[in-house]
């Protein structure tokens, strides 16, 4: 058995759970999409961030943001659509820090249950709660906690929307991993827009290695959507755009609707055996249609897996089953 405090990635022996968070020495996998991709000239890969220890791309930033934060005598509070909250709660528990998470009321019940399981205090916020953050009540609530004289000394917020460590985590880990895993031959990179830390950090790193790499951002087609973690940036007033967004690294932005996102995620599960969250479906749909005639290597960030969204998928797959029965299919048993 490996000794000492450092991680042993060869034997996979670790002195604490945070050492499993992905890094260039312990990257999340790139897995090729075969049957959904009809362009033979393009090798399309998913960067499966679900293989981080707490299940999503947000594990990287949670650790980066918390490890240097002065939390002495304070509770960490953060708005989150779930993944950042879960990652923060896990890292905070490992480091012995108290955490409270403000969540929008439209996130799946599975994520709320996991947060409660982790012992995080959960504050559900209606989207219309705060006029300062239209349609982002959870952000408004945390802003209120941090600025109220009665509470500000008891709380500290990583603020993933403005925290450069969010970008740094991806610049120092995810970007180099992708560059190395593709032997520097990547041509296209696709990521969702939310806090914009992922696309800003990875995009910056890849552009520095090869300015010809095309960086494509994917956002919901409408501000009202069911793609947790994604945010429509186009059309937002400047004050509501995440401060950490680095527009200079983004070549194109594509809008995707819920229906295409969910159907692509379901197709990926059924045709490739890769169960992912709906945001992966959105980003993959964009990639499959963007580079139809191009050649080379494309990488799509897959933020998380399907298991936290079963209640979101249930209506769609149940409807599929009902349609099959109506036409006499799927009842072979």
């Amino acid at each position, binding site marked *: 058995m490996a000794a000492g405090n450092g991680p042993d990635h060869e034997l996979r022996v670790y002195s604490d759970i945070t050492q499993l968070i992905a890094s260039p020495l312990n990257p999340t996998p790139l897995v090729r999409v075969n049957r959904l991709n009809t362009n033979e000239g393009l090798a399309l890969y998913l960067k499966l961030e679900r293989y981080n220890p707490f299940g999503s791309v947000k594990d990287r930033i949670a650790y980066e943001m918390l490890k240097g934060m002065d939390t002495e005598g304070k509770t960490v509070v953060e708005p989150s659509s779930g993944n950042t909250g879960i990652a923060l709660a896990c890292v905070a528990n490992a480091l012995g820090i108290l955490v409270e998470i403000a969540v929008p009321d439209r996130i799946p019940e599975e994520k709320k249950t996991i947060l409660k399981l982790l012992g995080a205090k959960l504050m559900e916020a209606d989207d219309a*709660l705060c006029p300062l953050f239209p349609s982002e009540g959870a952000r*408004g609530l945390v802003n*209120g906690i941090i*600025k*109220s004289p*009665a*509470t500000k000394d008891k709380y500290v917020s990583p603020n993933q929307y403005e925290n450069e460590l969010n970008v740094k985590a991806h610049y120092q880990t995810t970007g180099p991993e992708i560059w190395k895993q593709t032997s520097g031959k990547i041509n296209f990179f696709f990521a969702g827009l939310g806090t914009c830390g992922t696309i800003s950090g990875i995009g910056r790193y890849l552009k520095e290695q090869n300015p010809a790499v095309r960086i494509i951002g994917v956002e919901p087609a409408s501000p009202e959507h069911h793609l947790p973690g994604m945010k429509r940036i186009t059309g937002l007033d400047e004050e509501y755009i995440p401060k950490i967004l680095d527009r200079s690294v983004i070549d194109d932005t594509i809008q995707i609707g819920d229906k295409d996102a969910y159907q692509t995620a379901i197709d990926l599960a059924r045709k490739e055996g890769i169960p992912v969250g709906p945001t992966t479906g959105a980003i993959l749909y964009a990639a499959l249609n963007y580079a139809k005639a191009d050649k080379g290597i494309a990488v799509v960030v897959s933020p998380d897996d399907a298991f936290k969204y079963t209640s979101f998928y249930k209506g769609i797959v149940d409807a599929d089953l009902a349609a099959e029965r109506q036409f006499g299919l799927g009842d072979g048993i």
Partner: protein
Amino acid sequence: MNDEIKTVECDLCGFVCPLSKMKAAEAVDALSTGETLNIVLGDTESLKSVAQELKDKGIKPSFKQEGENRFILTIAK
């Protein structure tokens, strides 16, 4: 029979919006029949959002200002 009107004071001067609005809503919901509630607010943003919240609930409060940054909304149930 006790006809004395019970007045409840909810001092939210230490809270900015939307905490002030949330706590004011909780206080209103907890108000019993025959009670009067004084909601004390410490900034104009909170005043606006709490006033709007009360309006949405169909409640018309009376208003008093004490000094530059102390606003009192009073409602009776």
